[in-house]
């Protein structure tokens, strides 16, 4: 099958009886209906614990449903608030001038 995101071919792997498709291009993983629950159950059995609450965040979270102006996408390692259109970051007020002159110009 082809990756729904980048259209590269996907390969199927078996993990403890669960079929997982991974894209050769973007490394995205496709799970069929019920597969995530199966994996979660297996993980809980392995750890001898209750199943943890799903789901883990994606590496590149999709923007939330538009509310006026959609938030820009950001990498997972981005600043906790700065990259998601929220408050925080260093681009407001005094810090904005400082970071602009200080960082946005130097080699």
């Amino acid at each position, binding site marked *: 099958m082809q990756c729904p*995101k*980048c259209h590269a071919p996907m*390969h*199927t*792997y*078996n*993990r403890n009886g669960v*079929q*997982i498709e*991974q894209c050769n291009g*973007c*490394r995205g993983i496709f799970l069929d209906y019920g597969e995530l629950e199966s994996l979660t159950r297996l993980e809980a059995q392995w750890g001898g614990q209750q199943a943890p609450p799903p789901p883990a965040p994606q*590496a*590149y979270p*999709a923007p939330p449903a538009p509310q006026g*102006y959609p*938030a*820009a*996408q*950001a*990498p*997972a*390692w*981005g*600043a*906790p*608030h*700065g*990259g*998601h*259109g929220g408050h*925080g*970051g*260093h*681009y*407001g007020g005094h*810090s*904005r*001038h*400082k*970071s*602009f*002159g*200080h*960082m*946005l*110009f*130097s*080699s």
Partner: protein
Amino acid sequence: MTAAFLPALTAKASAAAHPNPHPNPRPDTPCDCATPVLTARPDATVIRHGTIVAKAHAPDTPPTDLTARLQTAAHPTLATTLLPPLHLTPTELQGRPVTLWPYGTPVDRDDPDAAPWEAAATLLARLHTVPPPTTLPHPLPPMRGPAKAAHAVARLHAAGPHPAAPPVLRAWAALPPWARAETPPPGPHLLCHGDFHLGQLVRTPEGHWRLIDVDDLGTGNPAWDLARPAAWYACGLLAPDEWTRFLDTYRGAGGAAVPADGADPWPALDVPARALTVQTAALAITKSVAADRPLDEIEQALVDACDRMSRMPPRPAELAPETTK
């Protein structure tokens, strides 16, 4: 640099700025035009004299590389993208190559609201759509972005131990070899600026924005040219609306570094943005050590980002193929 270097560089700029009978009535006395020093680093000395800018490049600059870069900047295909030099080859001054350029007005560092994000994005998109092998007369060396990042990390090593250095070095170690200038980058090699930031834009007397500084120009992964704004945005140093303006304009102008169809740009930007964050953090620590001062909040934000990225490798490891459908 000797004490006589700046006067000699000034004389070169002055001769270019005043080619006809000098306005000074006594040609044996120095010209009285002001000659501000725009940059004074070991690898670059830049002065302005009237309408002319003279740049003395690093002494170890390979002459053939610099000539190929100058001729690219002078090529008609790039007339609306790169500021053209006055001459197609460098001259030499006390062992350093020197190039001459028309003066252009830089971006105002004190006015973030006036930053020309759209112009920057359009120029980069234009640069990235030039097919280098067929259009340009001289083969260009690789774009020097990864080499500059590696150089910054080497400087961090040389600066000695620092409490903020380990997360930066961990983030560097997690990058793929091409981003550390160890192997050529994968994918298509397009014409790239190699060191884009807002100081690399000037406005001509006619009011057109152009890219300057061809020292790192070459072929490579064009996402590197978007990586500095991307890194500032990811580190919380550039507001989301400014980043979005830049990225949307780049895409609208047909820029090749990210998918054009609105798909997530971060798979393409991730590695270069990480590398630029590491590079900037490494230089910030190096400078703080040299000045014997603590990191400021902006510099700490870069180190914090390195710490987060070192715990999230650039690309998930490929699953081991147990079975294949």
